């Protein structure tokens, strides 16, 4: 039986249910505002956004694998390409690209061309240091952990903090292979 190859991000994006972009942006903005009111400290909010993203990522990975019909990536380079080309496109409609590979192939940067989360957003002076889109870091970290990769994801450049583009750094810490979960004392 011929196997179907992975589907492209555009094809899937055309087929999924979509929500109004403004609703999405405003909902996310409301979440961040509420977190700032509740937690008051910018660092705490960053951590909380990352944790929320992590929880989303652990569920999102199954949807990604099911819709994109992907089998395991051979190495981290392919994984990063998948995230940028298929993942971001499929879930956010964003075109992203991978740059800046290090020598061992375990660390790269993902540049987002646009970012629907930050439409209409300006950071006030009281919120300097806030990574508004930190949820995206958490999502990537959570999703990759469910496919046995422990990673660290941070923002390198953020337009809301004065840079000219959105750039994430994804660093592979280690691959965690599957172990037999039951103890042998049965």
């Amino acid at each position, binding site marked *: *039986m011929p196997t179907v190859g992975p589907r492209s991000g555009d094809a899937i994006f055309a087929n999924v249910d979509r929500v109004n972009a403004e609703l999405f942006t405003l909902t996310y903005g409301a979440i961040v505002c509420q977190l700032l009111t509740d937690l008051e400290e910018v660092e705490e909010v960053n951590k909380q956004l990352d944790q929320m993203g992590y929880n989303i990522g*652990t*569920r999102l*990975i*199954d*949807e990604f*694998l*099911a*819709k994109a*019909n*992907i*089998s*395991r*990536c051979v190495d981290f380079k392919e994984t990063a390409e998948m995230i940028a080309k298929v993942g971001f496109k499929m879930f956010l409609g964003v075109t992203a690209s991978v740059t800046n590979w290090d020598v061992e192939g375990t660390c790269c940067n993902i540049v987002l061309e646009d970012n629907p989360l930050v439409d209409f957003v300006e950071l006030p002076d009281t919120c300097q240091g806030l990574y508004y889109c930190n949820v995206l870091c958490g999502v990537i970290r959570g999703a990759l952990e*469910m*496919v*046995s990769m422990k990673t660290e994801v941070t923002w390198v450049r953020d337009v809301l903090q004065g840079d000219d583009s959105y750039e994430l750094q994804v660093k592979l810490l280690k*691959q965690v*292979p*599957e*172990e*037999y*979960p*039951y103890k042998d004392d*049965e």
Partner: protein
Amino acid sequence: MQFFGGSDVSPSPPAPTAAGHNANVMYMFNRNGVCLFYREWNRPLRTLNPQQDHKLMFGLLFSLKSLTAKMDPTSGDKGNLGVPQLPGQGCSFHSFRTNTYKLSFMESPSGIKIILVTHPRTGDLREALKYIYSLYVEYVAKNPLYNPGTPVRCDLFDTNLDQYVRSIS
């Protein structure tokens, strides 16, 4: 866990099983060996209690996967048997057949394993298993009340699964 005697009668293509459903048993495990879902439509013989049965099934598949990967004649890497593997890496087996049943298996890279036991003349169920995986995504993964890593208790998933399995030949 749900135990379901297959007693519905519905017109269906010829199947040796007594019930109208075309599948006998279905299991779903996650990467930690937790049995997320178990459903039986037609299972006359039960020898073990459910926990032992699930452990046995999971252990069997874990070992089979390892064995089939290590025996792969096309792969260059000859690791030792028993070395842990990443889910989806290397070659993966998808079914085995005996004279009384066929067991079809699918594992996603995130470690979700779906097992379907059917009558021995069933064709290739890989597409069916992929569809079941997408049902899981729709009704379980996206369900905010579901806690990942715990057994699935979701009526919508059950109904849709039932309906779909009825249509597998």
